[in-house]
Structures are given as structure tokens and as C-alpha cells.
């Protein structure tokens, strides 16, 4: 079988997603045998503009990154966004909550005019993304699964159902029964219910499912003495790009 050429790119993010690929250990050798990695921001110094598949970590937060992602989009036939930052904007979107000018003011003070910083957006605001490996950090086996599917030419199976399914398969007691709130019923599975497995609530790091029942979730949280603000705060951790800025909210 022919080895596809792959570029692995890092934009605004912590680098943890690329690290997950390096953490594949046993499978890493198989991976480099199955694909030809022509660029890997975090791991190799060589750079090539000749790739068919682009694996992209991080969100877009500078003008320069807009250029980079557009170029990647022009070259790659397939784009895979990995990690919450690339997929939904991730933690970086918390900046947007302040409004751009306010945020620059707070962080860069009098240097703010010199800094290239724009409103944070996920990758698919600029280019078409074919597949998403969600999560913070993403599940490295899911990244492998996507690559493997691309090599054999089938559609990767990425769950679009709530975390509850995996949680019940794992035989967990629902954390609500233990007095802990959880965003599991509206959040995307694929993490093997990582947080509830260790008795803490899901924070929706993989984003929400396509058709979440937000009203039911609000009713439920209300019953546990929580307000919509509490919920939004949790949503905001990884999904602030979907929310409103603090100024917009105060209006």
C-alpha cells in the first residue's frame, strides 16, 4: 500500500495534542511505517510543502495563522483537526469573552499595538475540516483510528452520542447520584468517559453533541441548585467561542 504524505502542524495551543502522537509509544513505529511524515512542528526540523493529509493542532489567533491555515488548506486534500483548540477554539476562546481590545490591554498593556492578536476561532472557520479528533487532550488512539481509516479508505467512526453511553458501558454509578454535576448527557463521547470513571463530572472537552437537549440539562441542573451561569462557566472552559463576550452579555 502507498504511504500517504502527512504534515502535522501546531497553531495556537499548548502542544499537548502533538505530544499525544509522540506518546503513542508502541504504535509510533507502526505509524511512521504506515505514513510518511514530511512535517511535524513539535518533533522534526524538516519542512515540506508536499503533503496530502494535514493534521492540525491549535486554534487561529493571529493574522499570521490565518495565512498559514489557508496555505495548508490549499495544499492538503484532507484536513484533520485535533484537540479542543483546533476543533472548537478551546481554552483560547476565553480571551474572546473579554472582547479583543480589553484582552490585549490586560495582557500586553502599552505593547498591545505591536502584538498580532485577533479574535480566536477554530480551524474550520477558515478552511474545510474533514475529520475532528476532539478532546483536551485528544484521545491518541482516535487519532490513529482516523489515520488508519484514511489509509484504507473508509470513514472514521467518531461518536456523536453522549458520554453517558460510555459511562454506562463502564458500569459507573452516575455521578449525579453522588451529588456531582456532569455535562455528560449533552457532551460528545469518545473519551471512554474519562472523567466520570474517576468520579468527577464531564466538562465537555470534546464539545457538545450535534443535537443536545440544552433545556433538559438546564432543568436538571436547576434541580441541583445550579444556575445557567454555573453551567455556562463550565461550557466556557472549552467552548467559549460559541458563547457571548462578557460585554455582549451585560447589554
Amino acid at each position, binding site marked *: *500500500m502507498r504511504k500517504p504524505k502527512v504534515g502535522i502542524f501546531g497553531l495556537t495551543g499548548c502542544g499537548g495534542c502533538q505530544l499525544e502522537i509522540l506518546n503513542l509509544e508502541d*504504535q509510533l513505529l*507502526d*505509524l511512521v*511505517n*504506515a505514513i510518511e511524515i514530511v512535517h511535524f512542528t513539535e518533533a522534526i526540523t524538516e519542512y515540506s510543502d508536499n503533503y496530502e493529509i494535514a493534521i492540525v493542532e491549535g486554534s487561529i489567533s493571529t493574522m499570521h495563522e490565518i495565512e498559514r491555515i489557508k496555505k495548508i488548506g490549499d495544499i492538503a486534500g484532507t484536513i484533520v483537526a485535533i484537540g479542543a483548540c483546533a476543533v472548537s477554539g478551546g481554552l483560547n476562546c476565553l480571551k474572546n469573552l473579554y472582547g479583543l481590545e480589553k484582552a490585549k490591554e490586560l495582557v500586553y498593556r502599552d505593547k498591545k499595538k505591536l502584538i498580532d492578536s485577533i479574535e480566536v476561532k477554530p480551524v474550520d472557520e477558515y478552511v474545510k475540516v474533514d475529520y475532528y479528533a476532539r478532546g483536551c487532550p485528544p484521545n491518541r488512539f482516535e487519532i*490513529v483510528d482516523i*489515520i*488508519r481509516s484514511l*489509509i*484504507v479508505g473508509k470513514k472514521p*467512526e467518531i*461518536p*456523536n*452520542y*453522549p458520554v*453517558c*453511553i460510555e459511562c*454506562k*458501558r*463502564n*458500569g459507573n*454509578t*452516575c455521578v*449525579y*447520584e*453522588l451529588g456531582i454535576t456532569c455535562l*455528560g*448527557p*449533552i457532551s460528545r463521547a469518545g473519551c471512554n468517559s474519562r472523567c466520570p470513571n474517576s468520579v468527577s463530572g464531564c466538562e465537555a472537552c470534546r464539545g457538545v*453533541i*450535534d*443535537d*443536545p*437537549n440544552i*433545556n*433538559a*440539562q438546564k*432543568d*436538571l441542573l436547576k434541580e441541583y441548585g445550579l444556575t445557567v451561569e454555573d453551567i455556562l462557566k463550565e461550557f466556557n472552559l472549552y467552548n467559549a467561542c460559541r458563547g457571548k463576550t462578557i460585554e455582549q452579555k451585560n447589554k
Partner: protein
Amino acid sequence: MLYKVLDKSAYRDFVKALISEYEFIGPKKKDRSVHDFVPIKDISELDTNYMRVTIPPAKKLLFPPNEKLVTYEVGRKIEVRPVIESDEEILFGVNAWDINGMNFLDRVFTTDFIDENYISKREKLIVIGMDSKPTETNFSLSMGTEYAKDGFDIYLTELKDKYFIRIATARGNEIVERYAKVSDATAEDFRGYDKYMNNYRKKFKMSVNIKNFYDDFELIYDNEDFWKKIAKNCYSCGSCNLVCPTCFCFNIKDDIELNLKSGSKTREWDSCMISEYGLVAGGHNFRPDKENRLKQRYRCKLKTFIDKFGKYACVGCGRCIEACLAKINIAEDINSVKKEVSV
């Protein structure tokens, strides 16, 4: 069926012997709210006096949440090897409605095709039943599953100072003869048993109007408002399916190794309540709305298998009611169907 009695003073020795001689699975308190069927190494871990339902149900021993079915290798020729794993073990302290749940699965996994993975586990599982107290969400009495007439090897019923023992298999008889100091049940013991059963049946507080549901359901089938109202808060989270002792749907996943030379196929518990369930090749979804999925679940539970083999696919255990964060309640919904069609 053989009937014996075991003096209460001899009960502990019997159980201890089983724990030391067999792989022994029994109910153990897991956290402050639920019990789980887990391997027991010492009698002090065993807690048969559970009130809250065990989650997940004992079906996990026969039909595990994730189960490898085949491995394969692709070389000059393709080699496929089935993976069938089963060990002899005792399942102790499982109650009547959960045994009836397993009996239902027996039919499912042997009708139309024989599921070797399931059957090999079922045949090796030695089932020792025991009553447990029904929760307030349990409606087994209405479903006729509060009593197990088969599907077990041994069934212990706790009377005042002794256990009334029903032995249903030769294997069960061997175990009793070998490890329990029993005597034959007398007429007096049978009277005690009947009295116990009368009392036991009074403990079921929740009842459903399941009579004529078969016909009522057709009358309500196209009433969109009714289903929308019932399913309004449904998350499509699938919890109701995954905790159910009779739900049997699974999805098969193909795991190809990165070397592209070998791989395996694994089945995992699936749910008819998630939107992907109705999704087919080409992107069409047969049941995109949650209300249609809930309606279909109820049809499957309460109607489909009456036609297929004369059983409900619901034993009334109440697990789905307890598991549902949206408070969707199959028992109340069965009753609302009746109410709605009688006005």
C-alpha cells in the same frame, strides 16, 4: 424441580464453601447508592440484601459491554479466528426479575441464529437466585417476572429460620448435595413458602396497566403530541438501554492494526435512543427525532416480542427509571397510554 430446606445456621458454611471452590460472583456494595455483581473472595464482601438495583445488570456476564468476536490476519490468505471466551463461574444472589431478563436474552440469542459467544457463557454460568426487595420503581409484579420458574440452577428463598431451596438442574443438585446440609422440604415448609410468597408479592408498590397495551399502543401510535410531550426532556443519552437487563442491541467495530495486516472485530453495547442508531449508508436517518426513538423503544419493549415469542422485552426492574436524568418513566408512560386512549 427438587425442593429442599437449609437451616439458617448452615447458610454461611454453604456460601463459604462455594466461594472457596468456585469463581464466585455476587452483589457487593459499590458506593453509597448502588451494588454491582463482582468477583467475591470473602463472604464479608457479599451483600445479598440489596435494595437499590445493581447497575449494570448481570447480563454483563453473558453479553459483556465490549467483547472481541474475531481476530483476523491478512497475508497470502485471510485467516479468521473466532474468539469465544467463557469460564465456569457462580452468579450468586441474582433476583427473579433479573433471571427472567437472562431468560429473555436466551431466546434472543438463540432464535434466528445461535450466538456462540453468549451461549458458551450462559451454559457455564451457574445461577443461584435469591429474592431481593423491590425498589419503589419496580413493577415486575405487573410484568409477571417477580417469580422465576426457570433459568437458574438453585434458588434460595429466605423463610424465618431456614432457606427454602428450589433446585432446577442436575448441576445444581450436585452442588447442593456436596456443599449444603439440606433436608427434604416438608408440607409445613411448603406452607411457609406459600405464605412468604404472598407477603413478597405485596411488597411491589408500583403497578402498570399493561393489559391491552398491545392494542392501546396502536391507537396512540400516531398521536405526535403525546409522544412529543413524553420525550420532551429526553437527552438521547441511551442510559435507559445500557442499564436494561433485556436490551441486546450491539454495534460491531472493526479494529485494523496500523500494520494493516491484522485486526479484530469487537461488539459493544449500542442504544436505540441515540440518533446514530437510525443512520444508514448515504446519510439517511430513519429516526431523527427523539420522540420517535422513545416510541420505538417502548414498542420493542412491550409489543414486538409478544409477536416474536410471547414475551415482553421488559421485566419491570425499574433500572431505566432510576437511570434517567430526564425522569422519563416507562411505568408512568404505560399508564398514560391507557389513560390517553380511554378518554
